[in-house]
């Protein structure tokens, strides 16, 4: 078991290393000079070169890579070219806004998804099951950008009960926060609901058909108890990992949601940084997003390794 855990950790480190190399070199082979973008077309060649020198952009790529990656370990994430300030500072300024939208979205999607999935599995084949399946198919297919715009039209333009766009955090008063964030939270959670519903439904169906559930029923335990105490508990383990992996979806979705609702969070930062070739911000953000995903996968693998010894034999 210890050997297995060490192996999984090493594998995760390899993946993280590959992400860092991939993100770094992909950003650097993009056509377009970030310094030129920041200084504008009128800037003289000397000015551009001076700034490139200052930011170490004229160094060989390999040494730039090592400078960046060693900075990650010491908490120095480099300088943002667009803002001329430490990238870490800018990211941590923007992060709370994305979290204040993303976290409620994740929680709502999880609760709704688990409820929908459980109901649909327990009432398998019923009208309710078909309706919920249809609902999750619809929510999976709904383009985030479209539903956002539609909701703005209905609630802000026609009914005038919610603001069109903008951002108010929890510190600006709970009512304001609620008014400004309800639409973005809904849009962001929509695609996630579908994934979690499907996962819960599949797992619940797997578990319900197993012998120990039949035994529990045969022993005369009430249906409620069978579902909540025995089935759901076991079905939820893979669902929780699915939820943890949604962090990636939240960040991806926030690029679109923040664009529509004009929220100055990580999503908007990433979009403008990709356009401005702001290497440090894009590389560092992508690195940390992947780190979260890889870490979640690692935890899942180790948990599964505990449950199923067969998995421990898997190769590299």
């Amino acid at each position, binding site marked *: 078991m210890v050997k297995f855990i060490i192996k999984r950790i090493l594998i995760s480190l390899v993946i993280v290393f590959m*992400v860092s190399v991939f993100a770094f070199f992909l950003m650097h082979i993009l056509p377009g000079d970030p310094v030129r973008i920041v200084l504008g077309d009128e800037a003289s060649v000397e000015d551009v070169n001076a700034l490139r020198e200052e930011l170490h952009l004229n160094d060989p790529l390999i040494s730039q890579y090592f400078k960046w990656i060693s900075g990650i370990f010491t908490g120095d994430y480099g300088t943002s070219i667009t803002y001329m300030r430490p990238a870490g500072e800018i990211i941590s300024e923007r992060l709370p806004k994305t979290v204040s939208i993303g976290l409620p979205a994740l929680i709502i999607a999880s609760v709704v998804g688990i409820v929908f999935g459980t109901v649909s599995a327990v009432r398998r084949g019923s009208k309710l099951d078909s309706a919920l399946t249809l609902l999750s198919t619809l929510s999976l*297919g709904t383009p985030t950008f479209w539903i956002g715009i539609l909701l703005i039209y209905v609630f802000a333009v026609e009914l005038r009960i919610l603001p069109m766009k903008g951002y108010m955090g929890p510190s600006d008063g709970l009512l304001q926060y609620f008014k400004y964030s309800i639409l973005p939270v809904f849009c962001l959670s929509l695609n996630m609901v579908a994934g979690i519903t499907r996962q819960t439904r599949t797992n619940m169906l797997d578990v319900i058909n197993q012998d120990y559930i039949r035994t529990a029923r045969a022993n005369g335990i009430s249906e409620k108890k069978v579902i909540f105490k025995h089935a759901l508990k076991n079905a939820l383990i893979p669902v929780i990992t699915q939820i943890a992996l949604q962090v990636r979806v939240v960040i991806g979705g926030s690029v679109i949601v923040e664009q529509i609702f004009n929220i100055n969070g990580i999503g908007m930062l990433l979009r403008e940084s990709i356009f401005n070739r702001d290497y440090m911000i894009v590389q560092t953000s992508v690195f940390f997003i992947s780190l979260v995903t890889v870490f979640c996968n690692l935890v899942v693998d180790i948990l599964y390794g505990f449950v199923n010894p067969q998995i421990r034999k898997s190769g590299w």
Partner: protein
Amino acid sequence: MIDKMKLKKNLRVLFGRGVLSVICGIYVVLFIFIAIFAPLLSRYTPTEFCGSKFLSPCAEFLFGTDALGRDVFSRIMYGARISFVASLLSSAIGLVMGTTLGLIAGYFKGFVSMVIMRFTDAILSIPALILSMVLALLFKEGGILSVGFVIGFTLMSSYTRVVYGLVLGMKENDYIVAAKLVGQSKTAIIFKHFLPNCFPSLIVMFTMTLGNAISLESSLSFLGVGITPPTPAWGSMVSEGYKYLVMKPSLAILPGLFVLLTVVAFNVVGDGVRDVLDPRLKGKL
């Protein structure tokens, strides 16, 4: 009595699912028809300025005209073509690249397989939208080919993972061992045995990624890194129309509605294909 109830219930399930599948199937056929015959179906070319701006729907302009006085109906017809070609192309690129990598990683043990599979994990840990936004900037112009490649590359890793799993499962089978003993070459084993056995799952995956690709393409076009305007892509039509939301909401709502319908239809048809061809994959893809 019980049998009668059972039969009724089964029929209801079948019917309930059937109606949706049939509607979606018809929609997909219609969509492909429109994509192919867009020039015959629309009265104007998608970039032609053909009248006053912001016209309301009428007999000549079924969906009205946009901010530049272009016929929205024609643009949506041509947009179907862009969506269809982009999704077909990107799914095909993802399929070919992903399958190749999966076959190689599955057949060869050790370092090669490790590098390919960890690279696949690495790609999958980056949000698809962010990965494709960065990839899109590799190209100067957002044409159908570059967008196809960008989305294809993003979709590639899920193919690699599935094919790799399938090959690992097949490796221990007697007929593979026999083929090796008879002295068949590596390429023969890969192309004659592994690849054909992956086909059912690959067809399923291909139909299931089509909807996904349409949704990614429209998101990229919405964010301004997909198909470059004035070529009519549904995503960029939504983002252009968003500016005039208060004045003429249909400009943004209508093209997006078609994205929704098309993605849902492709997903439902994909689910159906999966249930018929490879029921084991249910819930996994």
